[in-house]
């Protein structure tokens, strides 16, 4: 990414060290491979993570994201390659000597120690004086607002409180990198959403580098400065949340993040616009459509491509829209109503169903479109993304 022209990220444009070729990464995975017997957990993977980033590893279970984290923490040794932290090779340094701390998915709070002792544990191991430990623990207890619970044992705390103790404990030694392994997985949805924002604020406030492992794509989208989508031990795409969502480079990424429709099309013509391609294509029912790519790809005239369309970018109307492009006629066969939005499943052809989303601006009573209605789906010229088939 050299220009901001195709960047879909307008929110955090001021913080993007990964676009700066002079910036030195804090963490460098260099051709890292991790094998368990014949099973390849991490396959020749290279990745740079910069200071003050909130980096998310996202992927289905078994994709290697947890292994990446355990390699960083030092719980697993790598098979090939090396990992650098601040330019220093840490591949063979044991976990207790790495300036990296981890917040465990299970929180892993010591059941025989109270809140204070848990938080101060790491400092005690460092050989800090009693007074120093006390001050730092107090500071952290303030930070996570557990003032009333300092003498309680973990089993006397609620899930949310335990999560805070675990967070405070992992922050205590001011690690250069904090690893968060599914940190909010055990919380209920409301608390999880609230805690996501607290984590972000905390990370910004402390100016630390966080790395989070999660299978919850919404969580990754919310907290992260960059997301790495993983599959079978490889990085599929590393980008900002907005880029991942709006400009996925493969069908896998598009499908993994959010909802998406894939419609087959044949390329008629290609025009180059800056560092992307603008494509005109034809669907199997001879409808003309526009599509863009996110970079210069191998797609040529006459190729079969996937038209990737997010449901919220497709409008549903009873009246036929103007123009002769980027529209489809179909029948409503299902309506998924979740309150704020409704998802219409519209049958376009015998084996093609397109999902389109509509914000329920009107009360349900006044629903204009219902089952078996003939409707028109239409979208803007830049809504569709062309992906290699």
């Amino acid at each position, binding site marked *: 990414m050299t220009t901001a022209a195709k960047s879909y990220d307008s929110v955090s444009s001021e913080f993007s060290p990964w676009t700066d070729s002079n910036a030195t990464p804090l963490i460098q995975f260099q051709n890292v491979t991790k094998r368990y017997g014949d099973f390849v957990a991490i396959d020749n993977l290279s990745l740079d993570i910069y200071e003050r980033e909130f980096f998310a590893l996202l992927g289905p279970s078994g994709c290697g994201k947890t292994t990446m984290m355990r390699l960083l923490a030092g719980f697993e040794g790598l098979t090939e390659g090396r990992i650098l932290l601040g330019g220093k090779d840490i591949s063979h340094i044991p976990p*207790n000597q790495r300036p990296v701390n981890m917040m465990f998915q299970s929180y892993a*709070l010591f059941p025989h120690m109270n809140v204070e002792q848990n938080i101060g544990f790491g400092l005690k191991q460092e050989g800090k004086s009693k007074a120093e430990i006390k001050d730092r623990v107090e500071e952290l207890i303030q930070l996570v607002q557990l003032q009333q619970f300092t003498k309680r044992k973990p*089993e006397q705390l609620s899930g949310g409180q335990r999560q805070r103790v675990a967070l405070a404990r992992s922050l205590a030694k001011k690690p250069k990198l904090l690893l968060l392994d599914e940190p909010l997985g055990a919380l209920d949805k409301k608390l999880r959403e609230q805690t996501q924002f607290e984590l972000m604020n905390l990370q910004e406030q402390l100016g630390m580098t966080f790395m989070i492992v999660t299978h919850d794509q919404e969580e990754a989208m919310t907290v992260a400065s960059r997301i790495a989508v993983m599959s079978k031990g490889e990085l599929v795409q590393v980008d900002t949340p907005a880029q991942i969502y709006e400009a996925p480079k493969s069908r896998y990424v598009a499908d993994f993040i959010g909802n998406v429709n894939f419609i087959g099309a044949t390329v008629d013509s290609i025009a180059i616009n800056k560092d992307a391609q603008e494509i005109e294509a034809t669907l199997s029912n001879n409808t003309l459509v526009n599509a863009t790519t996110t970079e210069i790809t191998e797609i040529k005239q006459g190729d079969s491509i996937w038209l990737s369309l997010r449901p919220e970018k497709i409008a549903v109307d009873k009246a036929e829209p103007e123009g002769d492009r980027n529209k489809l006629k179909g029948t409503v066969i299902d309506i998924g109503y979740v309150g704020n939005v409704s998802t219409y499943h519209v049958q376009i052809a015998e084996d093609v169903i397109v999902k389109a989303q509509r914000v329920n601006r009107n009360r349900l009573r006044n629903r204009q479109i219902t089952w078996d209605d003939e409707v028109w789906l239409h979208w803007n010229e830049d809504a569709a993304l062309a992906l290699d088939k």
Partner: protein
Amino acid sequence: MGKKFSLGRLAFIGTPYFWLLIFFLFPFFIVFKISLSDLAVAQPPYVPNFDFSEGWNGLLLFFSQLDIENYTFLFEDSLYYKSYLSSLQIALLSTLLTLLIGFPIAYAMSKAPKRFQALLLMLIILPFWTSFLIRVYAWIGILKPEGFLNQALLWLGIIDKPLIILNTNIAVYIGIVYSYLPFMVLPLYASLERIDMSLIEAARDLGCSALKAFWVVTLPLAVPGIIAGCFLVFIPAIGEFVIPDVLGGSETLMIGKTLWTEFFNNRDWPVASAVAVILLLLLLIPILWFQKFQEKQMEAGT
């Protein structure tokens, strides 16, 4: 209907108490009564006995004949307190030895691949399939001067004349440690196996070496298992009779053996009963402490 239900409940709750009353408290009072009686050449070999034909006077006479003479005798003759002390020493030391041997076994079991753990557990329990007595007797064959152990050591050239182990206290320690090892390993394994691996990783992550993590996390969390195991070994070991009788020598002094001698060789039931009552009282102290500890554990909710 409510009454029927509560009767059923009463029976259900009452059964264990009834059991304790019949099979523990009642026999205990008989033993206690005998301990207050006097030796007599009679059948049974003590006086007084209940004589219901004498009525109220007979009962008064009965109680007037009871005294604590036998207890004072226990303090006068050094044999008894020496037996108690020696039993205590043997039980404590063998409990410690069992812990030292049992802990690594239990730890290794808890760290073994999950699919082997059931098998290992069965191997620990396997000795119970043979009679306890036979297993103790088998040690004679191993430990005697011309036994397997000495033959092996002689053959290896480690010793040039047989070691005298059988009929010494060492043989008693070996016998107790061997016999009670499963009672130590099982509770230890149960508590070690429960420890979440991520706790150890968290300790490592926060700066502990592997050894330090063991000391500050694994060991404290294994304490309930250590205590349970120690009691399961210590309590039966202190009153052990068979092992010192079969493997021990003339200098092996254990209260179980003394008790046996009083009952069957001297036929002094009153003194033997007094010995048994004191032993029970001595054991009450650790048992009550153990109960306190368990209550604390329950309150802590673990």
